[in-house]
């Protein structure tokens, strides 16, 4: 398994593990919808990549993997405190956006 798929798996499983807690902190339906929508995007990126080949030697993929790892680090720090749902949604959005770019690059 390449670093690209590994990164997508890490993000998807991080969100899977924390999904229930994230949804519990939502204050309204819009926030819940945003979280579930981002979660679905992360799940689709992961399973798309299961069905594709990764080209880990591609410099563009390596750069995106780095970006995704940085986004996941920020996401983890944000969700640990769960101080602000809006901040968590913002960080998840960033990570899922990079994940989608990564998924589109491979194959």
């Amino acid at each position, binding site marked *: *398994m390449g670093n690209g*798929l*590994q990164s997508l*798996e890490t993000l*998807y*499983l991080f969100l*899977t*593990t924390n*999904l*229930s807690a994230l*949804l519990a902190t939502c204050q309204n339906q819009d926030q*819940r919808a945003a979280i*579930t*929508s981002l*979660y*679905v995007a992360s*799940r*689709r990126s*992961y*399973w*798309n*990549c*299961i*069905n*594709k*080949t*990764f080209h880990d030697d591609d410099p563009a993929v390596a750069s995106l993997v780095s970006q995704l790892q940085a986004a996941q680090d920020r996401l983890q720090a944000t969700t640990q405190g769960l101080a602000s749902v809006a901040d968590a949604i913002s960080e998840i959005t960033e990570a899922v956006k990079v994940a989608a770019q990564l998924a589109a690059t491979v*194959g």
Partner: protein
Amino acid sequence: MTTTAKDLGDYYSALTQVIDDIVKLNELQSVVLGVPFIASDRAQFADTAQELQKRAELARAVQGVVSAFSQLSGSNASADVSDAAAKLGQDLVSIRALPTGSPVPDAISQAEKLVVQLIQEHKERDAAKAMDNTFAALADLYSEERSTYDSINRTYVILAKSLANALVDRDMVDRIGLAAPALQPFGLAPRISSTAPAEGFQELAKLQINEQAAAQITAHQKASTGMQQALLEMSKRIHLLATKKGMSSRGAPLSLADVEKWIAKLA
């Protein structure tokens, strides 16, 4: 070698079952947490399941050829031998690698016709020579995809774990099972009313979920490592027969025990 091929087929069938279970978990997640799961999502899983099923069929075909090959000495040519080898060829050609884009090595399909002919002519060493590249390619294919199989299983276990925890939080899990280990040795059955305090049991249930999840991930990693070792061993034995004195051993590789254990747990 026959056992290795059989276990490979059983392994792929079990992994296909894992995909089916992941679909069910996503359906449950949709109900419990409100996560959308639509037709296109199902199609994504159907693609993966189909590819794994092709590999299961390929392994069955390998099993047929290996079985025929093992009985070469002193046997008569039979339609079964020819059929098994022909089936292997069809499956090898039609299979598409997982993930897409890493095609099955050409060596597999190229060797097939020659193997059929040599098996029919009872030429064990020549058949081994023809199968040498084929089985090396089969072992390579598994090795290349093994970490993807580990990832699929990990995803399955973590998704199940997250949902199990969510159900425990919602007090939707029966607590009788948790009391059973203490009472079973004495032939007693628990009686816990639905109004019994859930707090302590919830922690205990989550601890059990955590430990079992870690054990299941480790069990699959051992199984996939064992399967890879067995395929490499099968390839090595064929190579030895093709190039040197003969097959050093014909028994089942020890590494298959972990594979069979993982398959049995899923059954």
